[in-house]
């Protein structure tokens, strides 16, 4: 992709496309944020430019009647109605932005219970690697070979229960991540999907993902909280695989 395209176009984290069906399209939070950002930004800049065009001082302009004088506190200017307008309008706008944040927030924080409908993956972060453990009663599907290596004949080996820096999960399921840290703070970040959760020692944190909302394929897992020397090497791969 060329630089110009890079500057204009970018891939949204895919979780924004579908916060449980509450957030996609122009009514969704990302588009709303973007549209209002542009409106406010353009409003300010346009007003600034308008001022610069119409209210420039020309040579020989007489001083205004309330022009400033050294050592004299100037006339107070103001207009209560106008000032109230631009107090209340932003208030309404941010209230609106808060309201539309609620549904996706509710979705994100509504972590499913550990039951037979969810697959619970234990995530353990240590300096500087990720360890993933599937539940002991979970039968690893034969399609899961991405994290298992190859045998001496070059055939892919099925994943083990515990995998390092590599996680393979089924498509069309609810995945719950129980996240723990061995040492310091880390952050579990699935880059393309936009899920991020700090990994806190002595405190189990949770994240979850409905894999039916994303395409099968390869995703990146990064550590997003500074954790020491090899922080930027604390990477893992996430594979979402269709299971029969």
């Amino acid at each position, binding site marked *: 992709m060329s630089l110009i395209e890079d500057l204009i176009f970018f891939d949204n984290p895919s979780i924004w496309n579908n916060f449980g069906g509450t957030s996609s399209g122009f009514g969704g939070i990302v588009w709303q944020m973007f549209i209002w950002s542009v409106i406010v930004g353009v409003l300010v800049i346009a007003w600034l430019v308008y001022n*610069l065009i119409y209210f420039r*001082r020309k040579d020989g302009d007489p001083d205004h009647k309330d022009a400033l004088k050294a050592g004299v506190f100037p006339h107070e200017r*103001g207009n209560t109605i106008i000032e109230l307008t631009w107090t209340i309008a932003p208030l309404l706008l941010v209230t609106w932005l808060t309201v539309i944040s609620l549904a*996706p927030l509710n979705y994100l924080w509504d972590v499913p219970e550990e039951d037979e409908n969810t697959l619970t993956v234990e995530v353990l972060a240590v300096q500087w690697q990720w360890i993933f453990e599937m539940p002991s009663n979970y039968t690893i599907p034969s399609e899961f070979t991405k994290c298992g290596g190859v045998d001496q004949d070059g055939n892919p080996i099925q994943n083990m229960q515990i995998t390092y820096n590599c996680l393979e999960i089924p498509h069309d399921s609810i995945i719950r991540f129980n996240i723990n840290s061995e040492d310091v703070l880390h952050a579990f970040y699935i880059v393309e999907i936009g899920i991020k959760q700090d990994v806190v020692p002595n405190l189990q944190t949770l994240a979850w993902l409905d894999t039916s909302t994303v395409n099968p394929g390869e995703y990146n897992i990064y550590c997003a909280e*500074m954790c020491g020397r090899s922080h930027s090497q604390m990477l893992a791969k996430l594979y979402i695989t269709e299971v029969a």
Partner: protein
Amino acid sequence: MITMNLRKLSIGFLIAILVAISAFPTGNGLPTGITDQNTTDTVIANGCTCHNTNTEATSSVIVNLTLPENFTSGETYTLILNISGGPNDLADGENRGGFFVTASDGELSPTVNDTLVQKPFGFTHLTHTSEGNDYREWSFEWTAPEKQDISVEFVAYGNSVNGADSSQNDYWNKQATTLYGVDAVIEVEAHEELSGPQKLIYAFAIIAVTLGVVVIGNRMVTKDQAFEDVLKGYWKAIYPWLTTTDHKYVGIMYICTGFGWFFVGGILGLLIRWQLMEPRIDGDFLTYEEYNSTFTMHGTTMIFMAAMPIIFGFANYLIPLQIGARDLAFPRLNALSYWLLPTGGIVIYMGYFTGGAGDVGWTGYTPYSSGDTATTPGTDFWVAGQIMLGASSTLTAINFLVTMLRMRAPGVTMMRLPLFSWSILITVFLLLLSIPVFTVALILLMADRTFGTLYFNVEAGADPILWQHLFWYFGHPEVYIVILPAFGVLSEIITTFSRRPIFGYTSMVYAMATIGIISFIVYGHHMFTTGADPLFRFIVMLTTMLVAVPTGIKIFNWLATMTGGSIVLKTPMVFALGTVITFTIGGITGIVLASIPIDIALHDGYFVVAHFHYVLVGGTIFAFMGGVYYWYPKMTGKMMNEKLGLLHFALSFIFFNAAFYPMHNVGLSGMPRRYATYDASLTDLNEFISIAAMLFGFVQLIFVYNVLYSYKNGEEAGDDPWDGWSLEWTTSSPPPHNSFTEIPTLKIAEEEKQ
């Protein structure tokens, strides 16, 4: 007379201390004395520490190597080594001793047919055989080298073993001896490799002496002065700066120090950008550890040692002038606050000489920062220096608070303070309420790191996010401490150059006060992805959104001030207007980040980096650069060059946006901050950012040149070059020694007319 002697004496002491520091031998070795890695390995393999659970040498074990007086070349000598003393002072017997000996030159060899001593194949040292460990005395031969004008270093290790099979209760010691050749000139001082700080001090000394000779020599020749007179002249110039308590001098020192650290921090920033020019492997340019130090020092420097000193420099200079006071309430305290700043900064930077500056990020999150094993040793200096800076800020806050509440001139009521003064008043309130919390947290952290306390030790049951609460309780007001004075500067400049009173003075004051109050209840938005209480996170989302309201009021009031005015586009004004644009962009992205669902994806990524650089550089730094152009005439009596100023603005604005705008895109693509390398697909954008950032750095040289050039060649300014209204424009430029020849009275426009 007494004071003269005292001064000489103190200078003498200072010089003595400096010499002592640089001459003090700096040990590079382990306390065991074994420094050479290879030797250590062979020692462990051949008879010393293998019998010993202690890695430390035991001083009561006496190792005695008998050597001749001196040596002649080629001659062979018989040497005797014995051990005695120590906890296992036993006679020879089964498994009672061992040894190991090396010589730096010549050749060691066992005596012919000796079964007690061996020379392992391929090595140059001697050690005992399995039969030899029944003895505590061994003899062997040494053939001297060809040269006899050199010295040879012998190192002997002796192992005192108790005869039991285990290695417990075995002790060892070592002896190092120098043997000189017959022609050797015995030097009293051995030449040692210089340590890092020594090299630096010597290098600076050489540069300083050379510069001194050139400058003083030049002066002596051109002005035809004696050496002493030249020195006296310089001393007279420097002395007032070192001893001043005058708010104007202290203010200028603050500003210069701030911009000086800004330069240093800027170079660190460019190192970061050079590292990120392409995805690099560890150590390609910076090692990952060095990279961590670099961004830590960049952040700390820019916030605490650049932005805050620049702000308090302007406050120092302008607050007494704007409220019509002769000085601050506590001038000596003010000088103390200032001098704590460069000292604290130096302490923080001392980390570079101890094996790597602090590498915990400017936020210093525990438990990474409280564990002393993983972090660099410089982190201790980082903590110590920050405590000093915290003390400095606390004292400053008290000083300004008292000054502004008690020392206003007649007519200067609270609601007639210039908006810059109001912004500083609110800032110092925030400072007084927030920075002690940080200082206390730092003291706890220091106790954890150095005294072994457990405030942040998670394994001992500490709250893992306690530090984050303490830090951000301070950290969020801190970013408003940095931005509110910039609002003040913008208000002053925009009013003056629109030639009209500010629109909605009262609402401006209330807006700033509201921002100040809200700042204490929004800090949780830095912790949206932690495991903190969801209700807490939800509430701070609401309050964070609310910050947009008073901030919006300020921006709209500035724009309304200009509407209907008669705008003069001088350098300070274009900087102010540029700031309005960049700050608005930074403010909008702030609202985007306030929404928790979006923040969860963007947190700790480059979108955040873009956001706070737009606010801090595009807000604070641009505003205060405008402030320099605006108040420079007041401080020096000279106008700054207008053409250079406009060029500086245009290039800065372009390259600033070119460098930081694409960071939004990089962040949306998922690049986390504090990464020393990144996904190769982002190379193009990062390269673009890096090049723009470097150009942005270079452009600042225009600013430096302008300041220096205008000091010599600028036009005379006069008392009120910009037609401003506040009281600083009623005194002369630069102001007289006591700031005002007589205390002014602020008049009111309504009464003026009658």
